[in-house]
């Protein structure tokens, strides 16, 4: 059995994702028992790794991915797996007002039309529930909604095992508390708190419009503790900054933020630099941001490429992926 071809979606100006795909390849060769490496002749399987949603050229990246998938399809690839760590347009998954487009559904249709036969993504189910106005949605996971748009298998990976390792390595776990900056993220925060055997707290915010935060209420005790804010996405970072300030007011000794997708658009870097309460912001490299790290010393990176590489390997060899939900492969 020949090993898969990994196709990288574009030479990014950002080097982090380039190194990712190199790592993909590296991992796969390392784990390939037959040691076949990346032989080119038979197109057994193609893993089109999208550089996901870097702000600014998300549509370019998406079209590029679709064209690559289509090219592989017409070149008789047996199976085409789209590795989309940060699924674009995931937030537009329902008709929240009249005549609003369900763009996530359109996205699924487009990927399948192009010829995609499998999707691997990361932390898709993360809550983007805006406010607590719909408590029933607390338990409806976004994964189910978006995976339901597809007629092909969707493997959602979790950054949580990577988080756990980072927390154990970098924070004094005995004095820490996990905080969810919004009610929607409570499930993830509790899960993480359980795994670390820690307490957790929750910030209830009222959001009048997207990307804007008005009022915050803290539920739980953070006094003299290291508060670890956990969220799926850091975009303009307004939420994070306000949550950090709220935690500081309630006596947290130090505040760290962990996010899966660090988009950091708009004036996010300025917001982070100005927020004294927040000491470190840690994001996975699903979205490239190493350029931004030069402008904001608080930013740190968790490499999730071993998880994605292992998922690619397991998918290719027909092994179970569920092991990765609880364990992060060693780098």
């Amino acid at each position, binding site marked *: 059995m020949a090993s898969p071809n990994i196709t990288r979606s574009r030479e990014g100006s950002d080097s982090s994702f380039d190194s990712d795909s190199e790592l993909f390849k590296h991992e796969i060769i390392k784990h390939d028992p037959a040691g076949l490496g990346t032989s080119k002749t038979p197109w057994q399987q193609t893993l089109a790794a999208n550089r996901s949603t870097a702000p600014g050229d998300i*549509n370019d990246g*998406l079209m590029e991915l679709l064209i690559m998938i*289509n090219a592989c399809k*017409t070149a008789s690839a047996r199976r085409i797996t789209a590795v989309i760590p940060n699924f674009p347009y995931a937030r*537009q998954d329902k008709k929240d007002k009249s*005549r609003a487009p369900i763009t996530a559904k*359109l996205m699924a249709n487009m990927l399948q*039309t192009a010829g995609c036969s499998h999707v691997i993504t990361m932390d898709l189910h993360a809550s983007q529930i805006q406010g607590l106005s719909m408590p029933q949605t607390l338990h409806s996971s976004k994964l189910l909604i978006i995976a339901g748009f597809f007629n092909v298998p969707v493997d959602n990976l979790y950054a949580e095992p990577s988080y756990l390792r980072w927390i154990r390595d970098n924070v004094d776990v005995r004095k820490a508390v996990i905080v969810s900056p919004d009610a929607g993220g409570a499930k993830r925060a509790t899960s993480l708190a359980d795994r670390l055997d820690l307490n957790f707290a929750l910030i209830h915010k009222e959001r009048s419009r997207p990307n804007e935060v008005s009022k915050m209420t803290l539920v739980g005790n953070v006094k003299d503790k290291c508060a670890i804010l956990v969220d799926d996405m850091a975009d*303009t970072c307004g939420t994070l900054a306000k949550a950090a300030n709220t935690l500081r007011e309630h006596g947290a000794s130090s505040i760290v933020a962990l996010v899966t997708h660090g988009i950091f658009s708009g004036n996010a870097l300025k917001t982070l630099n100005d927020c004294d309460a927040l000491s470190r912001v840690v994001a996975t490299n699903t979205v490239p941001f190493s350029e931004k790290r030069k402008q904001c010393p608080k930013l740190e990176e968790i490499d999730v490429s071993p998880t994605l590489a292992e998922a690619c390997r397991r998918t290719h060899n027909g092994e179970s992926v569920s092991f990765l939900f609880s364990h992060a492969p060693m780098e």
Partner: protein
Amino acid sequence: MRRVQIFSGSSHPLLTDAICERLGTSPAKVELKKFSNGETSVSVETSIRDQDVFIVQSGSDQVNDSLMEMLIMISACKGGSAKSITAVMPYFFYSRQSKKKSHRGAITARLVANLLSVAGINHVITVDLHAPPTQGFFGKPVDNLHAEPLIARWIKNHVPGWKEAVVVSKNPGGTKRVTSLADALKINFGLVTTDRRRSGTNGSLAGSGFLERMGDGGIESHISDTADTSPPNGTAAESEDSRIPPRIRTSPRLAPNINGASATSIPYRGLNGYTRSSPLAQSTRVDSASPPTNRIPVQREPVTNGPSRALRLEEKEEEEEDSANEYTDERAREVITGRLVQGHIVDDDAPSPVLSTMSASIATLPGDVMGQPQLDGLDPMTSSFISSTSAFQPDHSALGGSMDATAHSDDEEEGFKNPEFEHTVTLVGNVRDRTVFIIDDLIDQCGSWIAAAETVVKRGDAKKVYCIATHGLFGDNSLEQMEACECIDYIMVTNTYPIAPERVKTCKKLVILDISTLLSEAIRRNHHGESISALFQHFPD
């Protein structure tokens, strides 16, 4: 019009305004913006339930953003229970990528057609598709409108002496478009074609062939030899067929060059004999509009004396005429050649880019099979075999039947800037002291336009040159380069594609023809269920 909503994408709002004005309505309200992370957001702010929706979006510099915006708008209208959704795309996205150009190449136009279908369109209206077969990629009806009647009317109204003008195609693939306009205007047409010659390859092969054949003779001495013997041959060629006046306007050095090329070809063939052993070899000439030649065996014979050389010359000319005969009853009286180095016409005695005088002499011979570089001489079967079995690939051939004239017209820009290549330009048709309309469907890169304009002016002595196209994409700074080119007098495009107003202001030669009449009429007729075939007809005089 009742129960119709016309939406404008962000790529070309001016065109939508013009269409709506003609229809006595205004664009429907829609909010188009981007989230801070770059995701496109669409919000339809008017009811569309059970209405006919038309979404006008052309290509733009941010083509992917325009496309995504269009797809999301279609999806939103579909979800908002529109009765029908018509995509009005004056310039169709990715229309130039309508076939596989390389192994594992993507057919992106088909992908885009599928994406539009999956988003929910019922109907497509577009103008002058780059490759009309793209219509077949849609499972939905496509109205491919023609700008030609508008262009013909503009020519009749604005060009003095248009009845004496000549329509010229700048590549063999566009001949059909050109003859159609020539028929509509009842004027003559011509053809400019370029053959790529890699002078480096040519020179070395020819040189080695020479040394082998001549034994001790150097290149310079051989040239002088042939130059001495050439005049009788030239006169023989003319005297054999006195019905037609000299059809090749030979430059002072052309005759010796012919001799040189034919002489070199014999050992050259011997060196590459295996390519000719294929039975397919005879039918695989793709470099010009001439039909597949069956005269290759003739050239196997040693050509040493005047009469047989002259005979071959005649045959060459007949070939050129055969190609012209496919389209018009009138025989092409003029076949003019020129040399093209780095996109510009040069004199015949200008040095070749790789300093090989031999390559220059070979390249000057029109349509000479033997002068072809080695790789071009391979037939597709051989080249595909080679490419699938080794890393060696002929430079621009491909699987999937792309070795046709249109593929060359798409690729022609690529080689122009490359100093490695020298091109032979061949102009068929008489343009002396006439106005010339160079026609194609779109202007993106300007190299081939400038080359064609220089050919008709400098080699053909044309009076005025109009560059006419439906879509003015003007990539990079091609508009500015065409403005600077002294051989081009006017540039005429329609407003299917947005051109920045500041660029329009700086360009005095540019004429923009309004196409909104055509689109608005197509929209009106589609809504009322009337035939649109009247839109394809030319305006009466």
